């Protein structure tokens, strides 16, 4: 047996799929495999769309292009911000009600996408319940349409991670290399946690902590280069940023947790616990929140909370990603043509 059989999947690595031959984004599937320069560029472009006081600018950078929002899972916040982002860039925006589409008549995902592509789609914004769905589309179905992952199963939510990073960069008052960040709650089932950890690592955060009971920790997560805490008080002590995650109802009605009350008692982000973090630590949450389960109302609405800022920055980040991926696709076509001619 040669060594090659043990390294069979190099062709599947996400970094090789989402970058064009010049090394720029042509899809945005995951944070994994992107460099610090890539992430910093996304943040810089996002900043350029923010005017004074966080006002979002209008720029016709996607004029004449069609962005299709394909949400196979329900979403309000993410879908709306993508829609607003595409409109701010003057794109034609279509929201496809996928629940009522042909997929419910047995058409395969591949056929659905091919049909939509034939309707001159330039960008697909995709949310899907299966981990790797966006990756599958970019690799095997529509490599020439920019695929933006708006959340796939438990795998990744890269635009959420980038808006979290933009929030931290704008408000922490010090560079990532000096920040200790804690992520609290259901790490096991969270695509946000995975993408946040990868983004923080890529941007060089000093220390990343996850705080969760054993039942909500993914297997082998300590090998991700994070510090794992089961005790909330110990985990939050000395943190500069605290990211609380949503506990989904179906997790509570399972052997993973006993009750919302007990979870709040052990892992709820309360004012008392927040005092254990560094003074003026940033409080973040990807939403939607369960007040009184993972976070106290007084903390969610308190002056350390940046939760609504996150939503606002989400539009700028999504504008940046739409713009960059579309640009990357056009660049790829140009380079491919040059290669063919040359």
């Amino acid at each position: 047996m040669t060594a090659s059989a043990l390294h069979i999947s190099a062709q599947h690595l996400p970094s090789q799929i989402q970058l064009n031959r010049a090394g720029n984004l042509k899809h945005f599937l995951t944070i994994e495999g992107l460099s610090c320069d890539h992430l910093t560029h996304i943040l810089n472009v996002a900043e350029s769309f923010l005017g004074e006081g966080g006002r979002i600018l209008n720029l016709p950078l996607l004029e004449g292009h069609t962005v299709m929002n394909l949400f196979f899972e329900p979403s309000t916040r993410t879908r709306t911000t993508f829609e607003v982002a595409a409109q701010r860039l003057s794109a034609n925006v279509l929201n496809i009600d996928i629940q009522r589409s042909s997929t419910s008549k047995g058409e395969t995902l591949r056929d659905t996408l091919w049909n939509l592509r034939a309707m001159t789609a330039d960008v697909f914004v995709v949310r899907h319940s299966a981990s790797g769905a966006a990756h599958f589309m970019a690799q095997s179905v529509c490599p020439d349409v920019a695929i933006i992952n708006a959340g796939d199963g438990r795998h990744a939510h890269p635009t959420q991670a980038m808006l979290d990073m933009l929030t931290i960069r704008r408000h922490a008052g010090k560079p990532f290399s000096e920040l200790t960040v804690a992520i609290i709650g259901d790490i096991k089932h969270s695509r946000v946690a995975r993408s946040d950890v990868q983004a923080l690592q890529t941007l060089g955060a000093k220390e990343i902590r996850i705080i969760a009971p054993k039942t909500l920790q993914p297997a082998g997560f300590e090998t991700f280069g994070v510090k794992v805490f089961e005790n909330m008080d110990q985990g939050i002590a000395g943190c500069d940023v605290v990211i609380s995650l949503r506990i989904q109802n179906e997790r509570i009605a399972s052997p993973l947790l006993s009750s919302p009350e007990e979870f709040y008692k052990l892992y709820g982000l309360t004012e008392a616990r927040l005092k254990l973090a560094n003074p003026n630590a940033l409080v973040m949450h990807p939403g939607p929140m369960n007040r009184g389960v993972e976070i106290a109302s007084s903390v969610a609405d308190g002056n350390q909370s940046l939760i609504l800022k996150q939503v606002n920055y989400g539009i700028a980040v999504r504008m940046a990603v739409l713009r960059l991926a579309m640009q990357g696709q056009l660049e790829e076509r140009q380079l491919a043509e040059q290669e063919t001619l040359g």
Partner: protein
Amino acid sequence: MIELQTLKKSDEIIQINEVRVLDPMQCTDEVRTVWLQQGHLRGQPTADESVSQTVDGQGQWLMPALVDLCARLREPGEQQHGTLKSEGQAARALGFLHLVTPPDTKPVLESGALLPGLRQKAYDDGGIYLHVIGALTKGLDGNQPANLAGLKQGKCIAVSNARHAFANNDVLLHTLEYAATLGLTVFFYPEDPILAQDGCVHDGFMAARQGLAGIPAIAETVALSTQLQLVEATGVRAHFSQLSCAASVELIAAAKARGLPVTADVAIHQLYLTDASIDGFNSAAHVRPPLRSEADRVGLRAGVASGVIDAICSHHEPLSATAKMMPFAETQAGISSFDAFMGLAVGLVREGLLSPLQLAGLISKQPAMIAGIDALWQGVGGWALIDPALDWVLTSSEIRSAGKNTPFLGTSLTGRVTAVFE
């Protein structure tokens, strides 16, 4: 044992010069010139007889026809993935003349009356001897024993619930008692359905990184422990197929040490691949039981070397391209294994894990004995010529199976079946 109306075999005499003959029945491993006729070794032809073909066997191995303890040929019911013809012919060309197939076809193989026709079709279409494992419970629903006496009469070689769950341990206990009463061997594919839940990959670092639901190793070992205790309680003869965990090897070793009538096999890909192969949502590596950790792979190899594991199977599961063209968790599990099998098997010898004779035993004699088909296997004969030094690349066009779903696609392999004599 089987009532197949076999095709008339050629009377031609084939001479193979200076070939390394690996005969696990005689426990011999020697280089010599041999003559084959009607699938059997025979003495030197007399002056009245003529050799119709002479083959240079230098550097090659000659081993008995291979016996595979798990191959899904997809017929009946899922011919979009493969047929008795496509998979039978592929198997035959690759040295497998005897294939054992589980009962989870569509419809389920639970009627003894239908088995002779299926075997005959496998022989007529594919040229292979098909050996059927009958359903242990009706419709594999895990509630009530199937008509095991009828299945026995239809000459099933064993019974099993495939990967389907039992309603509870009481049902399992009584179906095992019933199988023991009828003297039937039970094949197990141990996996606790509750612990496995909606998992699709090994519950480890790769599952966590890719956000895929995991099947923990304990899903296999908990089921295996329970099944071993029930085997001990009922005295039924049991075979545990496609082990995937190092801890399972230890449980089997302990059971054998206690004298339980148990045997075990492992799929060839489990001896090479780990869950690292699923990186980038590589659905070609989506298989059940899942590819596990490096420690498990090493433990399974140790089990093969020590003899705790009695046989190596292909666990061949061909799938159409469409079945793998979906997001990872939604793709169908399965690896098309026939074509890479010998290249991988020979690798175990080259890496020093096994002697060539031990390998021959693990893929022919021992599985034949586990399946209880050793008399037929010896009776019909058949030998495979293998070039253990032949370098080749597994490309899609090289794959004889209808299923091109293998994580080894594009891999360089050394060792290949070059001819089959029967």
